[in-house]
């Protein structure tokens, strides 16, 4: 997974210079060509990658895990090289190298059609062979690493972490036997780690390796010996380069492999070196009393740094010259010498007009949608990240967002469960619904499940995709990185849980997101992944969902508070736009059309918040405030005025019983709809009159009006259902049943609604002692039409 993250970083860095080349390109073609040149450029930017990976380590814990992983492999090789059989040690080194390097090489191979035929043939065959093997190993590798990091994090976390670890272990051991040797290797690594820590003199270890190396061929004896003795810290960058370019290593002679093996071993020392440096700095910052030891450490560190700098370029240069003599290597040599931001700026300026304009347009839309106003504390963190782009920014763990799935059980299918109980296995087997495994494991598959109402399966699929993002079950509380996609997946999963009525589950999984304002939820926090991009990753609709969830949990006051906070930000952004500023209050140079689009977007968002507030007040039964809130919503959605006025009338009628005031609002609806001259307006007026008669206990007159609506709109489900209800209150049970049954049979796809079926079921129970059979017939109808999100409680079969 961490390797994949590195892969994601490279394309974004390379894309700007790619756009410089072609000027006349059709829209679909640039995407394809961008893909290929992206990875072509990756070869050139190998040096840049080195710098990037080095700088990333101190700024995020994710990279720290990557460092740990490398460290573990280093320790493993050290252990093997210490064995008496030198030849076996060499073979082991090669194996480790292949394991480390294979995933990125596979990716590179697939996207390098411009390479020479010879290289293509060799690398493609290697990639195809190793891809299958690599995937399961990578997946299994993650768990041991996460377990190790769990243990390393803190003692307090051990207690809650243990159950998760046990569950993970139990699940993994069963299906995959290959895990057993992996675990053994892990234990070996840990034992070697402990043994290495016990040793007081790391330098001695390096010396002993050098001694063993001296027995190798004389051609490299002198160079290897000298570099190890004098320039050991500098080998860290060299070894990383070699780790990322495994193909050349496979081809060289055995003596070269010995050389790289030595490099790996020295890298472990360098890793320890940098770790201790970081730790030392941290202590000095947090503990003033540690001030006196710092000068000594710094003094001791100064000498090695000084020694390293004049000689560091020499081995890199020689290595690259050996690998290739093409012009590309010269470009690679040039790139590391220039600062990263500068090279990015150059690439952007070199771009042609058309791709540049396209990129601008896209960024404009992103800026408009992603705009948000962070809190003061978050803003300060983001500014420090921006100003110390290559430095260390320490952020408390409590201020980071570390989400993970809270439950990993398959959601299942309630309809099928009922069929098993009441209709038998044969009938249940006939039910055909899509589940998380029967669709494409992507956004396309997710949309497919949502649209055919298989929302439980969609929740499962979101879980799988989030697990691939490193935020699966048991990952809550662990460091992670966020992307636009991962936030969208969380939004969809949480939204579906709310739609399914699983409010407690949604609440648990929302908890790590806090108030959706942590610094790592902003694009500015990831300048290397999203260079130049600003704003929040959190979808606006997710903020609405986060606020509304509390009212469904019985905390409407908390919902109101959260909605007010969202409203405040929307109002502030609108005020900024109307003053000619950008959304965030900064100076703006956007066009008038762009500003108008922004105003329109944020005004509609503000209206959406007010709508939620009105609904919340309705749930709180504060009808005076709710009515006023809906009247305010009309100002933002004037096209919904007749519907909202009718809704206010229904509130007064249904919730309070205030018939006179309801009648006033219904009369207002008649005035408004007279101008519309539509069928919809007339239906609304008739519906309102019917409700007035219901309020006066006049079910006969109400039934007349519902029937009149059906003459105008025979497929109106509401009028059909309501007319049937009136018949029941008039003592005509059979007629009522006939009407509802006819409606359901006529168009099951639309009329198998839980309210209609609940009414039908209730009347079945009133009608006959054979209601059980009729309810089971309804279950069969539901099974053939509805997805797994159907609320089976309305059938009263449980």
């Amino acid at each position, binding site marked *: 997974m961490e390797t994949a993250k590195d892969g994601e970083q490279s394309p974004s860095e390379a894309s700007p210079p790619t756009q410089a080349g072609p000027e006349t390109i059709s829209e679909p073609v640039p995407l394809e060509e961008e893909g290929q040149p992206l990875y072509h450029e990756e070869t050139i930017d190998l040096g840049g990658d080195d710098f990037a990976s080095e700088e990333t380590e101190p700024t995020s814990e994710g990279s720290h895990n990557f460092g740990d992983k490398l460290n573990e492999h280093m320790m493993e090789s050290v252990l093997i090289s210490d064995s008496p059989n030198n030849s076996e040690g060499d073979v082991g080194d090669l194996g480790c190298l292949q394991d480390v390097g294979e995933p990125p090489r596979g990716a590179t191979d697939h996207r390098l059609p411009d390479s020479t035929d010879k290289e293509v043939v060799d690398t493609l065959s290697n990639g195809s062979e190793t891809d299958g093997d690599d995937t399961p190993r990578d997946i299994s590798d993650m768990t041991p690493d996460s377990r190790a990091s769990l243990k390393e994090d803190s003692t307090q976390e051990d207690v809650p972490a243990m159950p998760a670890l046990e569950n993970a272990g139990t699940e993994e051991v069963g299906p995959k036997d290959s895990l057993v040797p992996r675990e053994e290797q892990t234990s070996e690594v840990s034992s070697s780690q402990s043994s290495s820590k016990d040793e007081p003199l790391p330098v001695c270890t390096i010396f002993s390796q050098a001694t063993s190396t001296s027995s190798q061929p004389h051609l490299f004896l002198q160079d290897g010996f000298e570099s190890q003795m004098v320039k050991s810290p500098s080998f860290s960058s060299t070894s990383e380069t070699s780790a990322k370019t495994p193909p050349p290593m496979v081809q060289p002679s055995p003596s070269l492999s010995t050389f790289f093996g030595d490099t790996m071993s020295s890298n472990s020392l360098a890793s320890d070196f940098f770790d201790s440096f970081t730790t030392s700095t941290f202590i000095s910052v947090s503990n003033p009393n540690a001030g006196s030891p710092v000068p000594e450490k710094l003094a001791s560190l100064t000498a090695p740094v000084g020694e390293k700098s004049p000689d560091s370029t020499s081995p890199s240069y020689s290595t690259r010259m050996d690998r290739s003599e093409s012009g590309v290597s010269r470009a690679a040599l040039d790139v590391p010498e220039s600062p990263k931001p500068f090279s990015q700026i150059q690439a952007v300026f070199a771009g042609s007009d058309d791709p540049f304009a396209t990129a601008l347009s896209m960024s404009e*839309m992103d800026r408009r*949608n992603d705009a948000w106003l962070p809190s003061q504390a978050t803003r300060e963190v983001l500014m420090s990240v921006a100003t110390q782009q290559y430095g260390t920014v320490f952020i408390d763990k409590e201020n980071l967002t570390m989400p993970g799935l809270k439950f990993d059980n398959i959601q299942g299918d309630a309809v099928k469960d009922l069929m098993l109980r009441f209709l038998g296995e044969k009938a249940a087997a006939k039910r055909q619904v899509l589940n998380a495994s029967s669709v494409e494991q992507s956004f396309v598959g*997710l*949309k497919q499940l949502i*649209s055919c109402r298989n929302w439980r399966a969609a929740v499962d699929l979101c879980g799988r995709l989030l697990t691939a993002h490193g935020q699966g079950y048991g990952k809550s509380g662990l460091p992670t990185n966020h992307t636009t*996609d991962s936030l*969208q*997946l969380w*939004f969809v999963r949480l*939204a579906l849980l*709310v*739609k399914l*009525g699983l409010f407690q589950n949604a609440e648990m999984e929302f908890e790590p997101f806090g108030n959706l304002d942590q610094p790592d939820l902003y694009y500015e926090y990831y300048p290397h992944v999203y260079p130049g991009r600003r704003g929040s990753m959190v*979808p*606006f*609709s997710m903020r609405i*969902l986060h606020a509304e969830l509390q009212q469904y949990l019985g905390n409407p006051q908390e919902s109101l508070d959260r909605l007010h906070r969202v409203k405040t930000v929307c109002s502030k952004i609108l005020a900024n736009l109307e003053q000619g500023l950008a959304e965030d209050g900064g100076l703006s140079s956007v066009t008038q059309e762009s500003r108008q689009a922004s105003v329109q977007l944020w005004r509609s968002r503000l209206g*959406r918040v007010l709508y939620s507030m009105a*609904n919340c007040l*309705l*749930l709180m039964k504060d*009808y*005076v405030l709710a009515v006023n809130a809906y009247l305010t919503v009309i100002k933002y959605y004037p096209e*919904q005025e007749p*519907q*909202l006025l009718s809704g206010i009338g*229904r509130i007064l009628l*249904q*919730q*309070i*019983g*205030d*018939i006179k*005031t309801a009648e006033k609002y219904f009369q207002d609806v008649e005035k408004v709809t007279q101008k519309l001259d539509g069928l*919809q307006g007339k239906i609304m007026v008739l519906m309102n009159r019917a*409700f007035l008669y*219901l*309020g006066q206990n006049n079910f006969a007159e109400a039934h007349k009006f519902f029937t009149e609506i059906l003459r105008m709109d025979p497929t109106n489900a*509401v009028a059909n*259902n*309501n007319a049937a*209800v009136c018949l*029941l*209150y008039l*003592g005509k*049970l*059979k007629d009522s049943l006939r009407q509802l049954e006819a409606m359901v049979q006529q168009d099951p796809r*639309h*009329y198998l*609604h839980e*309210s*209609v079926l*609940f*009414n039908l079921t*209730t009347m079945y*129970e*009133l*009608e006959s*002692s*054979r209601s059980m059979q009729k309810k089971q017939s309804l279950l069969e109808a539901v099974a053939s039409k509805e997805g797994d999100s159907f609320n089976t409680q309305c059938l009263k079969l449980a």
Partner: protein
Amino acid sequence: MEVNPPKQEHLLALKVMRLTKPTLFTNIPVTCEEKDLPGDLFNQLMKDDPSTVNGAEILMLGEMLTLPQNFGNIFLGETFSSYISVHNDSNQVVKDILVKADLQTSSQRLNLSASNAAVAELKPDCCIDDVIHHEVKEIGTHILVCAVSYTTQGGEKMYFRKFFKFQVLKPLDVKTKFYNAESDLSSVTDEVFLEAQIQNITTSPMFMEKVSLEPSIMYNVTELNSVNQAGECVSTFGSRGYLQPMDTRQYLYCLKPKKEFAEKAGIIKGVTVIGKLDIVWKTNLGERGRLQTSQLQRMAPGYGDVRLSLEAIPDTVNLEEPFHITCKITNCSSERTMDLVLEMCNTTSIHWCGISGRQLGKLHPSSSLCLALTLLSSVQGLQSVSGLRLTDTFLKRTYEYDDIAQVCVVSAAVEVEA
């Protein structure tokens, strides 16, 4: 209110369901923007849902009526409605079906059947339907008794009954408080103010349609719960016309004795019947409730046996100059002679002249005595005359008289100038 299926030997099935008002279906709106991962999918799902409002899918309160899900609570003053259905579950014709519905309360038994006529014939899978209504007037346990008698094809007479038990609860807590206002010292009868506290002790909001006081024959009543604004009557409770659960509202009424009763001073004594409150409210979808309190009663204020009234007093007096008042002391008891002693106590502004503790001598029942008293005021402005004490030496009981009158004190200099 369904119960267990009837015994298998009976050809007919009797089902009863309480008919509270239906409710409107509520939606849970979940939306997203087009840039989000689902795109327009969530919004489209809401449009396809028949229970959402066409064109306003985010509005939570829909238009779909849903039947009641349970028996619910029934309160005193509301109407109990039920659907009674007798269904022929058998495969043979049934004859001479008679359905009877009675309601047994703690004090009486009421017949609720709409018609007492027997149904001649009921074919298989047909039913007899009835909707009964009853305005509940008692609190406590109620039992709905449904009895069915019929004749089988073979001429056999069959009979069975079902009992449905439910509780009637109290919807409102009504408390009253009386205030006496004395408008005229010479008048024995006075205005009475009634404050009624009404608390909603149900679990749902109540729209208070009417809260009025029906006075007894002795009083006229004025309601003080609305204000005339721009020619329109506006409630003093604001725009919110309903009581939330456990909310309390205070209503104020002014009662005046009618003229024919006011002139008879002796009649309005002891326990007095004021009137009764009439309360009408509405709940879910216009469900109506109505209650009347029992007759409200009030103790008329008593003046005791000795009455002191003012006969004469000047309107305006000069600062620090003596002035005279005339008082009348009346023995109001019907049979007892009093031996009275008059004491005069100074206040911060009023100073009495003359001897305190003067013996007034014997006062016979229903007789009066006039006194001339002298006092002066040392403070300007409107001052109260207080500080008179009458003691009945026979019973050793003292009557205190304060604030018996007011007098305007002006300075002499001002008067001289005028």
